[in-house]
């Protein structure tokens, strides 16, 4: 059957349009390439519309072959492709519009596409849609349906959709849309001719094109009618009044500007007033489209069978479950700690024994003739301090590797999700979650994260929470000492201490919530990534950047602090026991004794953690000196404290005053010394309180 070649019926105003400024199909310019293909003057024009990468250009190339012209849209840098092809004896003009997600003028491409569709009015549009992302594609279809051009839908990428378990039924979609839908495999030229045939059939009888359009809520119809009549009375509308009215009500910036510029001031004032009263009309207009999309998808997409729920859904039924998810999170982190200890301990011992020992003997040899002051500083200060911190390296590398795998698999996002929901149940305000999100690695971004809070009071109070988030440096200190302190129970103890830390965070958070947000709530949306096999490169890079940054810190800040601690432990007389540090440490002994920590070296170590949390270990290294044979620094430290005191010490180390970098950030963000002092004071009270409670509880239990 031949498709009649004729000027389409939908052009009653062709003459009028010819006099309007418009885009030209082909406008030669010096950038043009390829042969000049003139559009056939009386032929039908089909516009190809679709999102980027949907296979639109493949369809275009299949149809036009060499008969195409590539240039630029007049005055734009966007590529314009036009061509001519024959279909059953008729010549047809084809215009490939730039790939667009909507017709909302968010980009140059979208502006070009919609200007073309409105001012040039192609006889029919072919919308190529992506079956694997049907919702997004249908949004464009919904917007297209508000325009004049009749359209047909080419359903492409069904194979990709099937791989994701999505099956789209073309005939059902066609029935739901009341628009012809042709299944395409553009890459193999399947369905392309059928699609053209369907398009030409619609173009031949546009009156029969009665699609199922998204509806507009009843309450907005009178407003829309009012705007249409206002626009209809003036010649200021470059588009069609009903379309312009809709776009005005949607708050479309470009249409609003155009009409504002060309409308008489009184008219604009009237229009503007109406728009101000319906500022949120967009939600209803877009809502109409979304509901329409929802209906189409429900009709045409066959849901995966219950048995064939995707792997991600199946894992998530446990991983994001309010209770089981939390148990799983604890289990996974407990396992991560246990693995870290098991895998890293031999390397750490080797580092501290062979490498550190070797380094010490090497320095002893090299510095044999040097003044005692210099060899003391290097061997007992820098190597014993910063060197010991370097023995963390295997612990950190393994921990970061595990964390990197958990993150790359997609689990960490679930962990954060479960954790935050738990915090919410405990009454913590949504926006205070943020420190948890940002602060797990380092407290500095957590403090900065509080900037999202507009209200100063809420911001200040949230900043108080930030240092309570266990950072990696503190976890490393914990990881270094726990195995020596608690042997086989190290992993559960570590987990327990982290949990204690989080419970205290929640408790303080609840108080902050009551004071700062007065119970008002807000929520987050979180998009959980799909689970996938971790990529070795990503994980490797993650471990690399993290360990490098740790090494940098050890080589600068911690090295310096080790030197200072050594100096203070040798001044004035050169004897540790009569040094400034010892005197100061002993003065604190009464405070420490309540926590069972009587050794002044432990107290000094805690205080030195102010400069950087890793300094706790560096200071212990300097003050305890080189470990005796068969012992490590950690076992030596363990020997000076009872189990209750060990636990108390670790709890205090976890909760102690924020490090210098965090304090500086707090001062900078709050602009107030008072708040900075309050933050330090709060943590001092919390950490001391926790230490005393733990030790006294152990004592009462007779342990």
């Amino acid at each position, binding site marked *: 059957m031949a498709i009649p070649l004729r000027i389409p019926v939908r052009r009653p105003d062709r003459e009028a349009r010819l006099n309007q400024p418009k885009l030209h199909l082909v406008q030669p310019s010096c950038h043009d390439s390829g042969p000049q293909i003139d559009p056939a003057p009386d032929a039908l024009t089909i516009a190809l519309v679709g999102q980027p990468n949907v296979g639109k250009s493949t369809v275009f190339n299949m149809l036009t072959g060499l008969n195409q012209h590539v240039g630029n849209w007049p005055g734009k840098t966007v590529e314009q492709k036009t061509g001519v092809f024959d279909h059953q004896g008729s010549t047809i003009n084809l215009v490939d519009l730039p790939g667009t997600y909507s017709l909302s003028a968010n980009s140059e491409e979208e502006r070009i596409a919609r200007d073309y569709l409105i001012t040039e009015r192609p006889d029919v549009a072919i919308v190529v849609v992506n079956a694997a992302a049907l919702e997004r594609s249908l949004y464009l279809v919904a917007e297209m349906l508000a325009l004049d051009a009749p359209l047909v839908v080419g359903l492409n990428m069904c194979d990709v959709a099937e791989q994701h378990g999505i099956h789209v039924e073309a005939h059902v979609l066609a029935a739901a849309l009341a628009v012809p839908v042709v299944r395409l495999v553009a890459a193999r030229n399947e369905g392309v001719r059928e699609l053209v045939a369907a398009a030409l059939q619609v173009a031949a009888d546009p009156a029969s094109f009665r699609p199922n359009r998204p509806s507009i809520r009843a309450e907005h119809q009178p407003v829309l009618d009012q705007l249409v009549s206002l626009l209809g009375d003036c010649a200021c509308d470059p588009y069609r009044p009903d379309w312009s009215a809709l776009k005005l009500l949607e708050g479309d910036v470009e249409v609003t500007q155009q009409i504002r510029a060309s409308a008489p001031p009184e008219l604009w004032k009237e229009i503007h007033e109406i728009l101000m009263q319906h500022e949120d009309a967009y939600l209803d207009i877009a809502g109409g489209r979304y509901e329409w*999309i929802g209906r189409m998808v429900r009709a045409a997409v066959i849901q995966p069978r219950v048995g064939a729920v995707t792997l991600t859904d199946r894992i998530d039924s446990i991983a994001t479950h309010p209770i089981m998810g939390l148990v799983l999170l604890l289990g996974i982190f407990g396992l991560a700690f246990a693995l870290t200890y098991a895998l890293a301990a031999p390397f750490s011992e080797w580092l501290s024994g062979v490498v550190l020992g070797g380094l010490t003997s090497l320095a002893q040899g090299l510095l044999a003739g040097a003044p005692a002051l210099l060899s003391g500083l290097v061997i007992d200060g820098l190597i014993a301090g910063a060197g010991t911190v370097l023995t963390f390296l295997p612990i950190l590398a393994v921990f970061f590797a595990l964390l990197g795998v958990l993150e790359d698999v997609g689990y960490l996002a679930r962990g954060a999700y479960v954790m935050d929901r738990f915090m919410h149940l405990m009454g913590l305000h949504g926006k205070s979650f943020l420190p948890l999100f940002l602060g797990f690695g380092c407290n500095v971004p957590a403090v900065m994260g509080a900037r999202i809070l507009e209200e100063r009071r809420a911001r200040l109070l949230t900043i108080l929470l930030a240092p309570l988030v266990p950072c990696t440096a503190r976890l490393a200190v914990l990881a270094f000492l726990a195995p020596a302190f608690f042997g086989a129970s190290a992993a559960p103890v570590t987990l327990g201490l982290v949990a204690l830390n989080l419970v205290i965070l929640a408790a303080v958070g609840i108080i902050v919530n009551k004071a700062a947000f007065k119970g008002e709530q*807000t929520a987050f*949306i979180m998009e959980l990534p799909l689970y996938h096999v971790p990529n070795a490169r990503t994980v490797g890079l993650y471990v690399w950047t993290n360990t490098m940054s740790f090494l940098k810190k050890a080589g600068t800040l911690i090295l310096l602090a080790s030197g200072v601690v050594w100096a203070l432990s040798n001044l004035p007389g050169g004897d540790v026991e009569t040094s400034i540090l010892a005197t100061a440490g002993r003065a604190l002994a009464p405070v420490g004794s309540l926590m069972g920590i009587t050794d002044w070296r432990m107290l000094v170590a805690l205080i030195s953690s102010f400069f950087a949390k890793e300094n706790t270990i560096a200071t212990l290294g300097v003050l305890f000196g080189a470990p005796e044979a068969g012992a490590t620094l950690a076992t030596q430290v363990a020997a000076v404290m009872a189990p209750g005191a060990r636990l108390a010490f670790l709890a205090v180390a976890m909760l102690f005053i924020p490090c210098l970098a965090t304090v500086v950030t707090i001062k900078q963000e709050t602009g107030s010394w008072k708040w900075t002092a309050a933050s330090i004071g709060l943590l001092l009270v919390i950490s001391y309180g926790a230490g005393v409670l733990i030790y006294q509880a152990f004592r009462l239990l007779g342990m």
Partner: protein
Amino acid sequence: MAEEVSLPVRLLRLLSAGGILSTSELAQKLGVSDSLVSMMAEDLVRRGYLAALSGGDECGAGGRAACSGCSLAAACSVPAVRDRLPLLALTSRGRQMAA
């Protein structure tokens, strides 16, 4: 049968109840697909009813921008949180609409 309020407004209302909601949870509650929820959320961000807290271009205060000023950024142990997780929260306009 149309709902009392439109889909985007229902989404905003679910959020105003507080807590942390995943896209699929919202999708279930609204009876639509996950991708439709993501689309709506993006749209609501563009229109100023929701704001991205971290990740995205608008993280300004909370996300990447905060990290970029931090010398320890590379050591931040949760890159997903830092860079990729789109955390969206109601803005005051969104809260007003949901009320």
